Structure formats: C-alpha cells, structure tokens
C-alpha cells in the first residue's frame, strides 16, 4: 500500500502528487463501498446486539461461580451442617468471620449460635471455603451486594443461610492429571 496521503507530500513533486491524488480518488470508489458493505452486513444480518438488558435479563452464572461465602441449608435437617469449629475464622486473612458455638450443646452435635461475616472487607480469596471440614461454607450465587450502610455489609447466620440456598452436592472437581 502506498502510504503517502494526498495533499501533504509536496516534496514528491507535482507529478507524483497528482498521481497519488487521482489514485486516492479512484481508491475511494472501491474502499468506500467495501466499508459500506461491512456496516450493512452488521446492520441487517450478522451479530445480534451484545447488550445485556441487565435487570430484566440476567446472565446464567457459571457452575463454579466464586461469590461471597455463605452457608447453604441442608434440606434434610433444615439447617447448615456447620459444626462451629472456627477454622474459617482462624484462616481468614482479614479476620472478618466470627463464629460462636452454641453453649451447652451436645459435643457431637455442635452448631453455630452466631456466624457473622463483614463482607465489606472480604477479598473473595475463598480460603474459608477451602478449609471448611464439613464443606458447608460455599460461595453464594449472587453478586448484587450493594447497600447504603456499612452495617448492611455485615451478614449474620440467617442472612448467610438465606443467601446460600439449599445445599447441593459439591460440583465435580476435575482431577488433576497424574494423581
């Protein structure tokens, strides 16, 4: 392709200048219809709009979506399988998880009396889910967490159970090669 744009190449001499101008004009008759063809293809035929009508139409979240930590409810017992061991609270790098076990309960059936996560400082690292021995601290399938106050970012046990939904079987992990 000749790079010389028309008009600003006086050093090339009048002959060259004229030829490049005429060439540009003739080129326009080819390149402009080409461009118009591209736009009209997009206009009528190819590619539906990529716009998502967000509040009305939501995207399907991926199976292993990494949301905020939550406590799904076991449909059999009607509560979370959490045993209030506090592993998540200890591993949390931001110390935002508070777990208080129910006092005076059967040691074989421990359950949390209080389970609080201050989500405003959560960094979605997922260490709490990873360390959970009962595998009951799962990422919630929600992302609309905006609220007007800092207090609104503190999620209690019942909020976490509501966000978690019902406990499902852990999605199949892909076994790494050679293990």
């Amino acid at each position, binding site marked *: 392709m000749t790079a010389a744009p028309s*008009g600003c190449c006086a050093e090339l001499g009048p002959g060259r200048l004229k030829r490049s101008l005429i060439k540009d004009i003739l080129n326009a008759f080819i390149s402009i219809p080409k461009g118009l063809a591209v736009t009209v293809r997009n206009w009528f035929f190819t590619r539906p709009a990529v716009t998502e*009508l967000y509040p009305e139409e939501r995207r399907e979240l991926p199976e292993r979506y990494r949301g905020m930590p939550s406590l799904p409810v076991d449909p059999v017992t009607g509560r979370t399988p959490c045993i209030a061991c506090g592993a998540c609270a200890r591993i949390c790098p931001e110390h935002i998880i508070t777990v208080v076990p129910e006092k005076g309960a059967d040691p074989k059936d421990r359950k949390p009396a209080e389970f609080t996560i201050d989500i405003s400082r959560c960094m979605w690292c997922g260490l709490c889910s990873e360390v959970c021995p009962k595998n009951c601290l799962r990422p919630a399938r929600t992302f609309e967490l905006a609220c007007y106050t800092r207090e609104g970012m503190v999620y209690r046990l019942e909020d976490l159970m509501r966000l978690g939904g019902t406990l499902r079987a852990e999605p199949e992990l892909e076994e790494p090669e050679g293990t």
Partner: protein
Amino acid sequence: MQIDTAQLIPLAIELAKIVAIAVVILLFMLLVVLYIVLKLRWVIARIQSRLGPNRTGPWGVLQTVADALKLFQKEDIIPCGADRWLFTIAPAIVFIPAYLVYVVIPFGEGLTPKSLNVGIVYVSAISSIGVIGIITAGWASNNKWSLLGAFRAASQLIAYEVPIILALCVPVLVTGSLDLNVIVAKQSGPFWNWNLFNGFPMLQIAFLALLIAGLAEINVTPFDIMEAESELVAGFNTEYSGMKFALFFLAEFAASFTLSAIIVTLFLGGYHPPLEVLGGRLTGTWLSLVSLCWFLFKCWLVVLLILWIRSTLPRVRLDQLMNLSWKALIPVGLVNLLATGAYAALWLAR
C-alpha cells in the same frame, strides 16, 4: 383614514392561511427531526451490535421527545465575556434558514407550500445563510474551541457551496427550469424517466457530487470537522445549552432532511411513484396523499443512506476535506457542467 372592513376580511383569511401553513411546516420539521435523531441512534447502535434507545416508551420511540423536554428544562447559560446579543440571535440565524428551505419543497402533487420559479436558487441561497449564524455563534461565545469550529465551518461551507451549485446546475440544464415543481413534473411516468437514470454520465456524476458535497454542507460524520468532538469539544456550539442548543441541533437534523428532499426532487422523480400503477393514475386528494407518501418514502431511503454513510466512514482531515472539494469535486463539476451544457444545447434542444 377610513378602513374598509370588507377589504380586511380576505386579507385576514390570507394571513391565517399563511400562519397555518407555517405552523404545519414547523410541526412537520419537528417530527422529521425527532424521527431522524431516533433512527440515527437505532441505526448506529445496530451497526455497532448494540440495541440503542429502548427504554423510553415502546421500543424507545419517545427517547428523542424525552431528550427535547430535558433540553427545554435546562438552564440557559450565557458565558461571561460572551457577546450577549450575538450569542442570543445566532441560533435563530441558523434555525430560520433551515426552516425557510422547507417552504419551496414539493411534498406532493399540489402540496408545495410556496411554488417559486427560482426554487433551486432560493434553496441554495437560503441554506447558505446558516453559515453566518454558525460563525456568529463561534465568535460570540468567546471560546477558542467555538471560534476554531466556526473558522472550520466557514472554510468548509464556502468550499462545498461551489460544488453543490455546480451539481445543482446539471439537472437544471437538463430539465430547463429552476422551478422545483417543473423539474418534478418533467420526471413523471415510470422510474426510468427520473433524472438519475437519464443523461449518462453527467447526471450520475452530478448526483454523486451533490451527495458528497451535501454531506459536507450538513456536517455529517465524514465531514464533521467543524464539530469534531475529539478535537474541538463540540465546535461552534460548545458554549450553548438548553433551548439555544436545541435550535442548533434541530437545524442540523432538519438540514439532513432538506438534503434528501433536494436529492429526491432533482434526481429521484420527486413525489412520482416509481411505476404509474402505484398511484400515478389517482386524482384529487388521493393523488396528493399518495404522492406525499411516495415523496416521504424516497426521502426516508435517502436519509437512511446518509445515516449509513455517517455510521461507516471516519472523519477526514481538514486538508483532505479542502483537497476533496477544490481539487476533485470542483474540477469534475466544472467539466461535468460543460458536458451537460453541450448535451443540452446539441441533443436536448433539437
């Protein structure tokens, strides 16, 4: 002095008629602009794989109405240091010519608001008054971007006025009249009687030249250097807000309808249907209505063409713009005019 009331009544009726026609044209112009703005946004959105306005009203049809209402509510700001008087009248100087051009356009059989026997001269003369308003706006704003935009507008519009008139002369020579109604009447019958499909290659060259130069005259994207957003903020209307900005906006989009109406009138058979079966044999009111529909349909197609070009081509540089006019369009237009003159004198006159 004794005033005879009996003489005043016909005068009053005449005056009322004029006012009614003016109001109808104004309403028509507003509707056309509302539609063109909406269509522009839809077309560009579709081309860019977006949806465009779809929230206000069904399919977003009320979007431009909402925009207009918003503009009417806005504070009318006059910057300090601006020339208040010029700043205030500049939008009117831009708007009124854009409105006046509509007066001579033959919208349909017997539907020309005011038939002039120098129609084309009127159109090209009136529509170039708008430049004065643009320069006034740029000067009065006391803003360097506005002033630069106005400079560019002046150089661009002067450069493109010439090829437009050279292109307008070609159908005038072929049809032998400056009256838009006569030019339309000469193209009656089936579509191969239209100017675009006759007089090869002079009329086709004139059509292309008119289209290109017309795009420059109405400042749409390949030639919108006078308001080049990325360089000049918004060009000559940077400092305008509210109602005054709305007037500039209105004039700009009204001009794109004017261009398509001129193209349709001169080259695409005006209000005549493409085949006589499709409404050419009607009479009276029906003929007027059907021919109006055909005129609007053809204008709609040309407006779509303008929107299509607008959403495809990138903006040209100032020097390229000047080159295109002075080195390409004007020489070609002159030679074309000469050829048409020879054709008209030696072939058509016989």
